[in-house]
């Protein structure tokens, strides 16, 4: 469980952000969100400012988890691609490498076909980046997390603030 801790450095973060920004442009999307399967927002790009991204991440992960449960019931491993059509905006959700969720919000300036096409490429790029992150954390498990330097007093002080 906890050995899958995700540690992300600035360099990785910039790469992920670069993929998300490019996907916004290439797919003509309103916004792109990269979410961890456990519901943590990793990165975002696009014009969708001011929306509650923490809730978006948690609910997206819940959605993937619930349909993943459904998939297993009918003998599938997962349903890795979801499409939700709204009156104005649509959501395209893709599970990448079984770990990362790529969410694209788009309206009628784009199309489902274009989004699907661009997501395929971006998903492959993200998969590669997260593979590298995984490798790094396996090479130095918990090696340089900020917790190595934290004292019990630091933790206690947090609760006296």
């Amino acid at each position, binding site marked *: *469980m*906890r050995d*899958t*801790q*995700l*540690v*992300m*450095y*600035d360099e*990785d*973060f*910039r790469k992920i952000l670069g993929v998300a920004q490019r996907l916004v442009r290439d797919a003509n999307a309103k916004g792109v969100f990269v979410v*961890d*399967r*456990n*519901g*943590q927002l*990793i990165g975002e790009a696009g014009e969708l400012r001011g929306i*509650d991204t*923490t*809730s978006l991440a*948690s*609910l997206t992960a*819940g959605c993937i*988890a*619930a349909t*993943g*449960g459904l998939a297993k019931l009918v003998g599938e491993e997962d349903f890795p691609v979801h499409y939700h059509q709204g009156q104005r905006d649509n959501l395209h959700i893709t599970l990448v490498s079984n770990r990362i969720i790529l969410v694209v919000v788009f309206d009628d300036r784009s199309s489902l076909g274009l989004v699907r096409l661009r997501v395929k490429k971006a998903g492959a790029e993200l998969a590669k980046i997260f593979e590298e992150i995984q490798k790094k954390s396996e090479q130095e498990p*918990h090696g340089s*997390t*900020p*917790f*190595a*330097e*934290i004292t*019990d007093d*630091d*933790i*206690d002080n*947090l*609760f006296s*603030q």
Partner: protein
Amino acid sequence: MSFINYSSREINCKIVYYGPGLCGKTTNLQYIYNKTNPDLKGKMISLATETERTLFFDFLPLALGQIRGFKTRFHLYTVPGQVFYDASRKLILKGVDGVVFVADSQVERMEANIESLENLKINLAEQGADIERTPYVVQYNKRDLPNAAPLDEMKRVLNPTRVADFEACATVGGGVFETLKAVARSVLRDLKQMSS
């Protein structure tokens, strides 16, 4: 599964409130939500039925402050307590960093408490985790009710390993923040231990 982001200098952890149906898991989160400074909390989400029983989960993001320049954020989740929602409970437990077991103190709910605790152990084990090695605290809720079971008895049955435990009355808030602080502290200590 904690998420440490060096770029935004954030540490994110997941805490799950577990327990039998109607024991007060959602009430714990609602009290925390109502009493927390708006700058420190996000929106609380409740995926509930029309009769306000938790259907999938409640979710409350909370910022606790900074440790060595890292913002610490806790994502609090509740599970649906009713027995037949086990598939949902398993999903929500995935990637958990710390667990609060909320027990219902009413004598007639002791069976349900025991069953839920067993279910927690099984579901943690299914994802390769052991309750004895997971940051974990116990809360005895509804201590104000006249039909509350004796505390000693509850401790004996529900907390044989003597982890940190608290009496609570979540509707008015007694014990709610004490429980949260204890589990958050335990999660951070555990992460520290894993790093050293």
